[in-house]
């Protein structure tokens, strides 16, 4: 008998008068001590599934149907009063810890105590002791029990959330995107904690994430969801070794991993279907290159193909049970990788952009005390580099390292404090705004957040025409219309997008419009500020390969700002690793990934999640988090975290030195 048995679960939301079938007939079981991962693109229903298991869907918003059995006890039919006793005591839920998940006006101790006392009969003192023990369990110093959420780092807040989840010693813990908001190094630590808890408490977990590699590390079994349905369910090892459903294959193929050969995946065309009127038949057929007539007519049932291996596809025989990089797959979906490594691109030495010793400090609003000294965040603290024509120059680092600020300084969106920036030999950091406008014709930016990057009141035609209008190139004639039609085609969007409003577009489509806007003026140089970090893996791959295609066609030079080493590895020629406002290592991508010299770069590489399950992943990551400095420490900025730090590191700041030809590193003890 399994611990949790979900049968034909359906959760429909009511939006106005339409029903959104967010979860549409999902069945699975969970055994004691097992860990199930649920993966899928945004909008596939994975979070709704989790909320449904907790019965956290408000009656006015939607309804839950089907059967959820916990130890053969039906949960859905249970009266709410009774269910409340089950909730948290037997099934708990850990949400993504943005600031909002913890109440900012109560200290973390009292929030954990509240969770305990609501479900267990005990005195305040007992609950307090239990809370301290829980904090020890999640490796947070129990002396911080009186701390308020804002006094903790993101990783610690996530640990506190996990402690709350464990408060009543549940059988099942649901973890909903618990590492999404965290930096890579912190992510490894939190996942390591989760893994050790699973083992030590024999805890069953349901882990939800849009990142498949993460599930690979912490789950025994993986469920792939698409448009409200399960398309594949298998043991983790099986799933990664031999993905069967075409969607799973594409999903795995879309991932960029620094441990594999360099390549740019194609991604999956299109976006998930509308769940008000999902397509009849297989929900994936519109995007599936194998689709046959039967796929459009009949819905494929979730069949047990092999023991404990379920797939919902009509065409398993015809497309074979082959591995994902089988030639047939490449034929059907032309995922011809752009071979970056051997591309016969001659790097010319004429620099498009030269950055010379730039500084940018942001003033911190609050002083320490009324007459305290003003403090400044050292966002960019003395940076030099050159970007050559035709190059893709990567800037990588964690949140707050100053990489985005560098991008914004380059385009004059922030004012430089000190130093100079040269664009094709001329200084653009000390010129008038009218002159800057001319520069902007040649230098453009692609922004991160696709959800607020387009004016909701203006249609797509207007958006792409905007740069032309600003620069006085826009004419009401057919030339402009042709130009915009051409831009849409270049970025792979249909012509009927011209009259659409941004609300009607998906994230990936908006990002393509953003690219069209940047390209409209035929620039030579583009700063890509995390252009794909908010997109799903399959969409991400498509946008990345589009950017690379456009680069070759239009002879562009990119600065690519990203926190994902995998993406940088796939497309960049050279990479600069930033830490606390400084470049700590700068070299060709191959050198950075394969021969990293700086301890921080090595840490980043070790923390980057591997595509295939790897038990040793993260074992070399030391505990403790990368601090966010308002004012950096003396000496090497990384010394408080560095395993090799010597006394000298605490006093003298190492400069960027050439360790090998073209390989610069700021560390004195390598």
């Amino acid at each position, binding site marked *: 008998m399994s611990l949790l048995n979900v049968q034909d679960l359906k959760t429909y939301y009511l939006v*106005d008068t339409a029903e959104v079938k967010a979860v549409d007939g999902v069945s699975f079981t969970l055994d004691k001590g097992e860990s199930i991962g649920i993966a899928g693109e945004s909008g596939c229903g994975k979070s709704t599934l989790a909320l449904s298991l907790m019965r956290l869907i408000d009656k006015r918003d939607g309804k839950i149907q089907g059967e959820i059995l916990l130890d053969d006890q039906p949960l859905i039919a249970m009266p709410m009063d009774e269910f409340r006793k089950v909730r948290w005591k037997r099934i708990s839920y850990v949400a993504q810890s943005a600031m909002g998940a913890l109440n900012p006006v109560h200290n973390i101790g009292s929030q954990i105590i509240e969770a305990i006392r609501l479900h267990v009969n005990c005195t305040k003192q007992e609950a307090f002791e239990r809370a301290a023990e829980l904090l020890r369990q999640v490796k947070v110093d129990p002396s911080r029990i009186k701390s308020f959420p804002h006094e903790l780092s993101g990783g610690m807040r996530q640990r506190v959330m996990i402690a709350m989840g464990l408060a009543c010693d549940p059988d099942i813990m649901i973890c909903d995107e618990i590492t999404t908001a965290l930096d890579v190094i912190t992510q490894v630590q939190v996942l390591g904690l989760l893994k050790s808890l699973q083992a030590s408490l024999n805890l069953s977990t349901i882990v939800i994430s849009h990142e498949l590699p993460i599930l690979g590390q912490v789950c025994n079994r993986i469920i792939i969801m698409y448009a409200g349905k399960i398309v594949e369910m298998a043991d983790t090892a099986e799933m990664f070794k031999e993905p069967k459903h075409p969607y799973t294959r594409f999903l795995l193929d879309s991932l960029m991993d620094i441990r594999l050969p360099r390549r740019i995946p194609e991604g999956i065309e299109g976006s998930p279907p509308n769940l008000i009127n999902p397509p009849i038949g297989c929900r994936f057929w519109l995007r599936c290159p194998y689709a046959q007539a039967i796929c459009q007519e009949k819905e494929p049932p979730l069949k047990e193909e092999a023991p404990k291996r379920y797939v919902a596809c009509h065409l398993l025989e015809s497309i074979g049970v082959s591995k994902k990089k089988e030639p047939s797959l490449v034929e059907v979906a032309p995922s011809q990788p752009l071979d970056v490594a051997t591309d016969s691109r001659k790097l010319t030495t004429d620099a498009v952009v030269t950055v010379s010793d730039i500084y940018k400090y942001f003033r911190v609003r609050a002083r320490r005390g009324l007459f305290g000294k003003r403090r400044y965040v050292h966002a960019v603290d003395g940076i030099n580099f050159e970007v050559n024509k035709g190059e893709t120059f990567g800037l990588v680092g964690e949140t707050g390292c100053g990489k985005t600020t560098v991008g914004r300084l380059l*385009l004059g*969106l922030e004012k430089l404090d000190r130093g100079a920036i040269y664009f094709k030999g001329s200084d653009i950091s000390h010129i008038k705004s009218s002159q*800057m*406008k001319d520069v*902007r*014709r040649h230098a*453009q*930016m692609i*922004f*991160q*957040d696709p*959800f*607020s*990057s*387009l*004016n*909701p*009141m*203006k249609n797509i035609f207007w958006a792409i025409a*905007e*740069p032309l*209008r*600003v*620069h006085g190139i826009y004419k009401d004639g057919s030339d402009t219309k042709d130009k915009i039609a051409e831009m849409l085609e270049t970025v792979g969007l249909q012509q009927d997008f011209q009259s659409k409003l941004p609300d009607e577009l998906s994230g990936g489509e908006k990002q393509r419009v*953003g690219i069209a*806007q940047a390209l409209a*003026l035929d620039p030579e140089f583009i700063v890509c500020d995390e252009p794909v970090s908010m997109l799903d893996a399959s969409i991400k791959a498509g946008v990345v390969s589009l950017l690379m295609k456009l680069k070759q066609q239009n002879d562009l030079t990119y600065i690519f700002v990203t926190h994902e080493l995998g993406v940088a590895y796939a497309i960049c020629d050279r990479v600069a690793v930033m830490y606390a406002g400084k470049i700590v290592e700068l070299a060709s991508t191959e050198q950075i990934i394969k021969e990293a010299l700086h301890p921080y770069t090595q840490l980043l590489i070790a923390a980057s999640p591997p595509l295939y399950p790897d038990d040793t992943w993260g074992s070399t990551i030391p505990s403790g988090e990368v601090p966010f400095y308002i004012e950096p420490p003396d000496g090497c900025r990384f010394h408080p975290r560095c395993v090799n730090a010597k006394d000298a590191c605490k006093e003298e700041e190492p400069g960027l030195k050439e360790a090998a030809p073209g390989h610069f590193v700021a560390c004195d003890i390598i």
Partner: protein
Amino acid sequence: MFKWWAKYRKSKVGVAGLIVFVLITLAVILAPVLATTDLEETSVVNFEPPTFSHHTHDHPYRDEIVEHGTHLLGTNAVGEDLWSRIWHAGRISLLIGVVASVIITSTGTIVGLVAGYFGGIVDEILIRFVDMMMVLPRLPMMILMAAFLGPGIPSIMFVIIVFGWTAPARSIRAQVLSVKQRTYVEKARSIGGSKRHIIWNHIFPNVSGVAVAYLILEIMRVIMLEAALSFLGLGDPQTPSWGMMLFFAQSEGAFSMEAWWWFVPPGLLIAALGASCNFIGTTINDRFVLKVKRG
């Protein structure tokens, strides 16, 4: 346009408000058609309750025949037909409401846009001035000012506008501050767009929802205020609005005569118009105004 209507239509309250508003507006526009008597014409009978047909009867004490006209809402103290008067008065009320509200909202929008977009010292000066205006006790100040300027429609409108533009200015400024943070504004800057381009194409369209909601809600507030000030006797006796009608009803003894037909209809119309504006305004606010942050 069609899309907007489809979105608006989903609110029952909003549609009901719109219907009432349109009906009242039509009625006051068609006042000359609806009026059954000439405005100057008076009936012999004062304080006559509503009568629906023309009839005559003998005077109870004197030897003469009393002629009754058709007075759908009866007559007032001097025998004027109230049905005819109420629609003409509505014209004044609605006109004051619309004109003052347009001036209030456009002033507020401009101030809000400038303060919010330019920030810094400009914002500091403008918003401190707005705050100063907002802490003044409004009604007493208005009465004082209106009394000082002398009764009449222009002075009533003047004081309403002077004290009215601050609230929309504050709201629009807050909205501008939120819109200003969005990536598309940043993007327009990176393209090289001028301040005028950004304000006109990116900021203004995205705060226009609030502005329109304010425009409608202000009509309600202005009509209410005008009624209040007129009731206090600060209006123009020559051009009666609904508020003036109530003032006359009060001063000429309609309450003691229990002549409900004199004061109930204008009161109801003020309430209905106010409620309809409120419904429309809140619907626009709920459905078309950018929320601070989704998700």
